[in-house]
């Protein structure tokens, strides 16, 4: 649009626009000052290291020189990508990553919102505060501890004389079936999901509680006068008030659709479930951080980035399409 207009503009009009721009910039001079520290941060610590992306196109190991004499050497074009995409395990990794991630988005994402709304309905303040503090404790329990507690709960009996872990026995009593939580199949996905729900639901409420703190109390008072019941207050006041935050969080979550983390999965992995639990992140951890195949793992990361970009843009468009502000 801007370009089309430019043609039609006379010199005088151009000057006016330029003057207006200058005036606007001058008016905002203090805003630019506020932006400066953040701007510098992004340039120095985010933009400058971007050259690292080029490593994806090189045969690169930690001691390989990138600058200076090394600048012209070891370029291998898309070999790293070709190796990755044609790797027999690529589809497996993609499948596992998507399953774990989508299960989290579908089942885990709404939970902190629901819990925050429940907490918001509690009127006994001291009790509410106590509960809030308790539910966010798991966030701080190290994954190692969670893993060992999980092992204990779902343990299968070692011999016919023994009984299994508490959860194993409960499932057996209720359904008569033996639960192989850490064996093959889909079980591992549920284990990972439940661990995640347990660890992060309480913590996830914080952002929504902050949003709820911003809801104007007068609106509720007015609604009560109008005879709105609790449910109606929730539907017509509370939820619309935090919808912006929910959408923002959702759009951001979509940006990390291929992120599964590696620590939790590595702790729960064994030979029976590995084919189902190996994801991009565990793969990159092993090949990059431990082995140092940086060229290859940078290519994997770049692939993940591009997918993220597409997802986050799509989610943002969708948000705008349904009338939300979106993220940017």
């Amino acid at each position: 649009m801007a370009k089309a207009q430019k043609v039609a503009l006379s010199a005088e009009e151009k000057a006016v626009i330029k003057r207006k721009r200058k005036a606007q910039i001058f008016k905002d001079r203090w805003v630019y000052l506020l932006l400066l520290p953040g701007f510098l941060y992004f340039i120095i610590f985010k933009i400058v290291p971007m050259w690292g992306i080029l490593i994806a196109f090189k045969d690169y190991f930690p001691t390989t020189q990138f600058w200076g004499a090394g600048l012209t050497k070891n370029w291998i074009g898309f070999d790293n990508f070709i190796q990755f995409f044609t790797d027999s395990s690529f589809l497996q990794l993609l499948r596992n990553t998507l399953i774990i991630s989508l299960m989290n988005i579908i089942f885990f994402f709404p939970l902190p919102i629901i819990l925050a709304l429940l907490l918001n309905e509690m009127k006994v303040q001291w009790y509410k505060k106590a509960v809030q503090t308790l539910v966010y404790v798991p966030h701080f329990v190290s994954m190692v501890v969670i893993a060992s507690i999980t092992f204990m709960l779902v343990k299968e009996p070692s011999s016919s004389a023994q009984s299994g872990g508490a959860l194993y026995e409960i499932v057996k009593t209720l359904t008569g079936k033996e639960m192989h939580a850490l064996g093959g199949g889909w079980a591992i996905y549920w284990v990972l999901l439940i661990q995640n729900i347990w660890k992060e639901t309480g913590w996830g409420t914080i952002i929504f509680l902050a949003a709820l703190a911003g809801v104007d109390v007068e609106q509720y008072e007015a609604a009560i006068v109008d005879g709105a019941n609790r449910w109606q207050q929730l539907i017509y006041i509370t939820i619309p008030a935090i919808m912006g935050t929910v959408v923002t969080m959702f759009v951001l979550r979509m940006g990390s659709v291929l992120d599964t983390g590696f620590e939790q999965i590595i702790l729960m992995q064994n030979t029976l479930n590995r084919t189902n639990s190996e994801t991009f992140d565990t793969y990159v951890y092993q090949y990059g951080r431990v082995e140092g195949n940086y060229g290859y793992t940078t290519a994997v990361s770049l692939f993940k980035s591009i997918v993220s970009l597409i997802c986050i843009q799509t989610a943002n468009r969708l948000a705008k399409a349904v009338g939300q502000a979106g993220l940017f």
Partner: protein
Amino acid sequence: MISIKRRSIGDIIGDIIIYLVVTLLAVIMVIPFIYVIAASFAKEAEIQTRPIFFIPENPTLDAYKQVFSPSGMGPTVLRSLLISICVTLVGTLINLFFTLTMAYGLSRPNLIGKKPLLNMVLFTMVFGGGMIPLFLVVKALGMYDTYAALILPGCISAYNMLIIRNFFIELPNELEEAAAIDGCTEIGIFLKIALPLSMPIIATFGLFYAVGHWNDYFGALMYLNDSKKYPFQLVLRNLVMQTQDNSTSLDELPPEDTLKMAVIVIGTVPILCVYPFLQKYFAAGVMVGAVKG
């Protein structure tokens, strides 16, 4: 809220259900941590043989005595705790300064250059140069083996910044316009209007950043050389993650489980204490009250 006097039966049933569900959740979420605490007071043999328990049979302070023993690892533990507290405090303040200023700046309407800046932020959120280039930048700036390396390279989380920006955008415009008429500069409006109105958000993200600093071990592992500078999480991790599998030498026994549990408790309690202090900012109506006052 005092005006709610008549309570229907539906309301009461609703309340009962809500309280029951939330209480149950709270119990489920806290039980494993109670086990960790119990185990930290138990004898090693009990942990090895009892699957799960909440009260140790023979409670003992041995593990804590060992962790805080003044002639043993005590000084190291205390020093690293102190380092963690300082890094967390300073780091969080720096995080908030950088994040809030930028988020506010980007929330201003009609700002020329806003779009490209936002695009840049978004770009860095999705793409990154990886560990090595960042390491080289940190080294070139002379921050290697200093605490600056733990704080500055992550002083804005684009994710947090964008959420805060959205909150700033949703602030009522009228107040700012009024302040502008009173002769406030944008910085004045930021300090006097926007910040006080955003306390819940500042508290929330302050907490997020603080927890991030508190739990970070990787930055310290990468950028610090001198083990005397190590923060608590790195010390904790080395104790907790040790198993017989990764101790390859004959005489190195992994630390006992009860000791591991004790350091986990020590590493968790300080940061848990922060939250109750922030809770007053989450009470409903804080923002509206601030507007009126």
